[in-house]
């Protein structure tokens, strides 16, 4: 070791010891708060350019992302292929049918954020393009409507014009539109940094946008990185961050693939920290996904979070299993041409082809990465509908058959009816918005809103978060499959008026003008709403619950010049796809769905709002992929509920669905028979007691050979058990102690035994020729039947002998023959057939489908079951009409029966 090395080692050792001495204590006392940003390992350095392509260091101007990133990447391509940038601009097309001019937030009215992007020609300006950008600052990444007009010109080319919603802004003070000068404010290019920087300064960016400094917004994103500083005089580029060529120095190149935190900045609550307890800001639209659905993406266990959750201790699972398993947002929502994520095969291919190696080269991809990202089938976001379902879904990675093989019967049937999310996102543990009532307004310009899943003030730490179970609605996937999937339903009420361009939601400014004067409620509003005369309106008073109140506000709106002001309500389903639980924590109890209608997950009602303003029933929004086939009902207390009707979606859920008339009819048949035989029996008994006791002459006959007895009793046991297990499956809520799944298995096994027994019996009867016993002889059948019927309603009470003798070869009277023929030749085969088809829905759904599927087969099966039950009652009673009441039963046990001795000849029994 030479001297230099030695001194280096000594220095290092000294530093280490020093470091340990100083460091250990602090290191052990607390963990480092923020990870030190490491420079990008692969992204080369580059110069920052302004819009003219000059280095910002020289020009001092704002950065142009299109120019800067465009040095290597095809930024024009990227912006053209980015719905995050477009936001509905390219689909913008006003019509007089609807106030929505596009399918994105630029043009589609969102009653939660409420402000309306005014169309050209609207009489009253609400949001101009400039103010739309300010209001949506946190959700706009630039490009699209931030630098391009609705007609496709550069915004900077528009002439300032107070009458053009694209070149004006509403002055909040005067309530009048004013001209907006784009050349002064600048426009906002698509901001690459907000998603590709480790720690973008979104706060500064939002502040710049809200201040109308659109041109500086992208520069603002870099404040705090050391590249640029912001003072009251503007932005100043830091020389020290650049090398002699004007390129960024290595350590300032913090470009990376988007992380979950990048996505979370705009979309909702994502919590990558494992140590710091998660706290959710309830129903806060700054976290739109979480506010509207309660979805939280975090690896942390729910009971390790900082939420005041009901039964928190038991919630020993992560908020989202995929987050726990280290999946990133971009793993599913990948760039569509990313070769690493390319879908196996797209479009039409020969059957034999399973893999297509022709993919983009990684270099080509990096130059032109498609910024349209793979997406699912959500109901609330309709932008770029052609991209729906481009994402890998649950079943692309998970094999439901294998995953559920060890416990779930009828896997395919379940998967054909229920989306994975319905069971695996069974409950939301963060509050979500339930309703926004914009028919009223608070002094601070807010709607009267209600959060679901929390008791009390949603933003108080003392409030108990109960979470909520999503509503299950029938969703039509892009492939045409219909599945029940979970949704949060958000109900909004608002005023609408008629503009010459068509109906419009009342502007917030007008709503405030109708309710408020100088920031407090106007005197006549207060006197109408202030029920307790306290001089202030609390949450229970601030609602329109009478015609008088509605008239008052409508009048005040009309006085502002609004035509035909009226209240409308709408229900928007919000898809729930994140916050997935693994099997152990998913719905895995059959009775969660297979139970009575009010408790079943598929049909339980969900509250829409605590009241409907003056009884206005809200309507589901149209144009989604969701069929809300249920009913919206207003309860007596005024609360509004959505009552799902699975039957309307052609769903039959055992134990939950039932056809009422069949149960009524069946019960009537069963209890009617019971009542009939009881009456008949009582009459017989009374008459028997009155009659002189004369011992009728009887003789022993070997009536039933052993096989007959065997198949009869086997069938008896099986049918009784089938009826009982069938009843449990039909009404599991009444028979709570039985395992639904176990009972279904028993029912199926019994059915198999029944079929085998029936077939063997048919074989026996055919091969021995005894089948003819069951076949009513046409000749004289009715005469004989009438004789027998007369006996049952007359002679039997008088102790008369049976009109037809019972012999081993002719054991049945005509009525019996007819009945058994019906039971064994008609009802039993029908029951076996419908039962087999129901059992077969798993493997041969199409065959069941020919007969109308479960909604037809199942009620029919129930009906026949009721008839069987009624038959058994009568059948058992009839056995008591032999020589003595128990004689026939004894005969079926031993084979020997004492029968009335009729006078004529007969073969003697051996």
């Amino acid at each position, binding site marked *: 070791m030479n001297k230099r090395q030695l001194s280096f*080692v000594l220095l290092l050792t000294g530093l280490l010891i020093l470091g340990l001495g100083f460091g250990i204590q602090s290191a052990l006392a607390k963990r480092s708060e923020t990870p030190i940003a490491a420079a990008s390992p692969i992204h080369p350095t580059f110069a920052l350019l302004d819009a003219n392509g000059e280095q910002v260091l020289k020009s001092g101007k704002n950065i142009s992302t299109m120019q800067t990133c465009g040095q290597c990447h095809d930024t024009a391509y990227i912006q053209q292929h980015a719905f995050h940038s477009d936001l509905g601009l390219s689909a913008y097309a006003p019509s007089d049918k609807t106030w929505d001019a596009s399918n994105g937030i630029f043009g589609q009215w969102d009653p939660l954020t409420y402000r309306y992007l005014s169309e050209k020609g609207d009489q009253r300006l609400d949001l101009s393009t400039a103010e739309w950008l300010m209001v949506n600052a946190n959700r706009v990444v630039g490009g699209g409507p931030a630098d391009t007009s609705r007609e496709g010109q550069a915004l900077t080319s528009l002439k300032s014009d107070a009458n053009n919603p694209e070149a004006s802004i509403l002055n909040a003070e005067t309530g009048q539109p004013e001209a907006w000068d784009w050349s002064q404010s600048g426009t906002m290019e698509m901001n690459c940094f907000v998603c590709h920087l480790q720690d973008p300064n979104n706060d500064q960016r939002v502040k710049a946008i809200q201040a109308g400094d659109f041109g500086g917004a992208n520069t603002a994103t870099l404040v705090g990185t050391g590249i640029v500083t912001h003072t009251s005089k503007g932005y100043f580029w830091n020389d020290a961050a650049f090398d002699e060529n004007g390129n960024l120095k290595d350590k300032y190149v913090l470009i990376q693939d988007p992380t979950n935190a990048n996505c979370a900045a705009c979309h909702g609550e994502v919590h990558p920290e494992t140590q710091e307890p998660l706290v959710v800001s309830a129903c806060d639209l700054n976290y739109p996904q979480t506010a509207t659905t309660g979805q939280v993406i975090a690896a942390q266990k729910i009971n390790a979070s900082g939420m005041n959750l009901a039964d928190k201790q038991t919630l*020993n699972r992560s908020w989202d299993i995929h987050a726990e398993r280290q999946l990133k947002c971009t793993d599913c929502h990948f760039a569509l041409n990313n070769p690493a994520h390319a879908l196996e095969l797209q479009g039409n291919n020969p059957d034999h082809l399973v893999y297509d190696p022709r993919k983009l080269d990684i270099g080509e991809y990096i130059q032109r990465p498609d910024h349209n990202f793979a997406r699912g089938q959500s109901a609330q976001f309709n932008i770029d509908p052609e991209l729906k379902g481009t994402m890998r879904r649950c079943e692309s990675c998970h094999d439901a058959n294998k995953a559920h093989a060890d416990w779930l019967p009828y896997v395919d049937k379940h998967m054909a009816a229920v989306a994975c999310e319905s069971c695996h996102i069974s409950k939301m543990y963060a509050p979500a918005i339930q309703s926004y009532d914009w028919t009223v307004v608070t002094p601070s310009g807010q709607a009267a809103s209600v959060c679901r899943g929390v008791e009390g003030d949603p933003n108080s730490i003392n409030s108990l978060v109960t979470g909520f179970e999503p509503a299950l609605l029938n969703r039509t996937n892009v492939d045409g499959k219909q599945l029940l999937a979970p949704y949060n339903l958000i109900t909004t009420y608002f005023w609408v008026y008629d503009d010459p361009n068509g109906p419009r939601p009342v502007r917030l400014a007008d709503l405030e003008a109708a309710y408020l004067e100088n920031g407090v409620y106007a005197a006549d509003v207060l006197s109408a709403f202030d029920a307790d005369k306290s001089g202030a309106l609390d949450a229970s008073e601030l609602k329109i619950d009478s015609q008088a109140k509605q008239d008052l506000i409508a009048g005040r709106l009309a006085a502002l010049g609004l035509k035909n002001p009226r209240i409308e309500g709408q229900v928007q389903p919000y898809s729930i796809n994140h916050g997935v639980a693994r099997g152990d924590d998913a719905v895995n109890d059959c009775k969660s769905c297979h139970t009575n209608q009010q408790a079943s997950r598929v049909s339980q009602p969900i509250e829409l709002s605590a009241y409907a303003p003056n009884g206005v029933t809200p309507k589901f929004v149209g144009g989604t992929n969701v069929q809300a086939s249920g009913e919206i009902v207003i309860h007596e207390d005024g609360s509004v509920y959505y009552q799902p009707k699975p039957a309307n979606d052609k769903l039959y859920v055992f134990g939950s669905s039932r056809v009422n008339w069949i149960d009524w009819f069946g019960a009537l048949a069963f209890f009617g028979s019971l009542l009939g035989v009881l009456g008949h029996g009582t009459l017989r008994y009374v008459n028997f007691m009155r009659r002189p006791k004369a011992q009728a002459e009887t003789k022993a006959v070997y009536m039933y050979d*052993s096989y007959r*007895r065997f198949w009869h009793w086997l069938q008896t*046991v099986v049918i009784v058990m089938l009826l009982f297990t069938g009843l449990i499956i039909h009404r599991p809520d009444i028979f709570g102690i039985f395992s639904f799944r176990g009972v279904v298995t028993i029912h199926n096994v*019994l059915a198999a035994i029944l079929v085998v027994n029936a077939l063997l019996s048919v074989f026996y009867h055919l091969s021995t020729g005894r089948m003819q016993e069951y076949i009513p002889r046409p000749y004289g059948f009715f005469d004989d039947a009438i004789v027998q019927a007369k006996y049952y309603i007359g002679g039997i009470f008088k102790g008369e002998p049976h009109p037809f003798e019972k012999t081993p070869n002719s054991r049945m009277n005509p009525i019996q023959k007819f009945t058994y023929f019906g039971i064994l030749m008609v009802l039993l085969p029908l029951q076996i057939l419908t039962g087999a088809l129901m059992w077969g829905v798993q493997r041969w759904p199409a065959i069941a489908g020919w007969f109308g599927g479960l909604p037809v087969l199942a009620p029919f099966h129930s009906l026949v079951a009721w008839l069987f039950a009624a038959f058994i009652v009568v059948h058992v009673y009839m056995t008591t009409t032999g020589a003595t009441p128990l004689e026939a039963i004894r005969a079926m*046990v031993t084979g020997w029966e004492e029968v009335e001795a009729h006078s004529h000849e007969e073969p003697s029994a051996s």
Partner: protein
Amino acid sequence: MKKRFPFWILGLVGILLIVLVPILYFMPRAAASSNDPWSKLPEHPVHVDHKDIVKGDFKTGQDVTRACLVCHKDAAEDLMMTTHWTWESKPFDVPWRDQPVTIGKINQINNFCIGTQGNENKCMSCHAGYGWEEGKKTEQANPENVDCLACHADTGLYGKGTYGNPADGVDLLAAAQSVRAPTRENCGKCHFDGGGGNGVKHGDLDESLYFPDENEDVHMGKLNFQCTDCHVTTNHQVLGRMIADNYTIDPKEQVSCEQCHVNQKHEDERINSHLTSVACQTCHIPALAVQDPTKVYWDWSQAGQEGREDDHFTYLKIKGEFVYDKNFAPTYLWFNGNNEYRYILGDKIGADGVTYINKPAGSIGDPTAKIFPFKLHIAKQPYDVVNQYLLQPITSGKDGFWTNFNWDQAFKLAAPITGLNYSGQYGFTTTYMYWPTTHMVQPATQALQCDACHGENGRMDWKALGYPGDPIEWGARATPK
């Protein structure tokens, strides 16, 4: 008619069989586990109450032992063969020494109270014997010096004082009559309070385990295990070896989870795939010192300051400065059950500023090694500046450091006892000591989940462990098939 056998009963039985057998065959059922860990636990025979057996007038501890030995003839001889008595391992050949070495409290040092030699009056309060004074080693061979009461008496009735003798005022008869199989209290007296106080040393053993919560330790808390349920003891030979007091350990002499959890697999195959590289403890002991804090840093160089206020958790004049930590993540290393290195008295200190008192053996290339949790205890302790080895001071006693606060004198006094020359110049150097974490197993529901180790906020330093990156993305280590 002659009474015939009712053949219909056969028919009935047949029918019931035909119905029931298929139902039972097809009924869904959970697979029964054949690996019941309970079956592996030792049985606890009811202990004979010694209240009426033990009589006599006991003046000294030796009197009690003599009484015990009347019936338990081999007990003392058996115990004297164990490390609870010898405080010394068998001889090991180590690559950095020519002669075989033994390791134990008797001759080596740690980075807590440093060493026992010459400090017997204090240290021997945890020795399972009586009257061990410096220079009286031969006397120790006497079986009557075995302390039966330390492990078998009710800890509320017995305690140890100087040189391992019974503490003053102990009612020896009452203590002797209370004997029984050792409980957590008996073991805990020394093993929970090692290093000079509750929870100082181990991090996974402290007084909270006298009455543990089930969430702290599922075995001792929920199931009320005694130490000897896992540390199975035969003829006073306790199963389980302390890595710090050994160089290598025969797996047969070590306690393991698999002792009871034989072939128990996790439901999720992805978890099972960890088992070749991750020890059970790593996931099932998510945190150290769950209830009571443990010492993680000890700076002897600050000891002896005049006028500085004493505080149990930060500073004591006799011991120096400390850092305690509580409910924190362990340090993770590859570990095959052995030491790669154990500091032997006289070894040179580390050239890079850190001396390892022990260094667990194992690396990513060692197929027998698994990632294992450790408590790392860092200390600054004295060394001889000229001779470049660690020094063991005399701390207790008349002229010890704790009396005079004179390091120089403490080292001079120790030199003839340890046999290690003292040059007269001392300094303080950083030492690392690793303590394997294997107690405080939390319930399965509390075990670590994926994100605890994998992903941006994971607790593993993959690069330090030898991986190219997070194995969830870069793949597991290649192990020989």
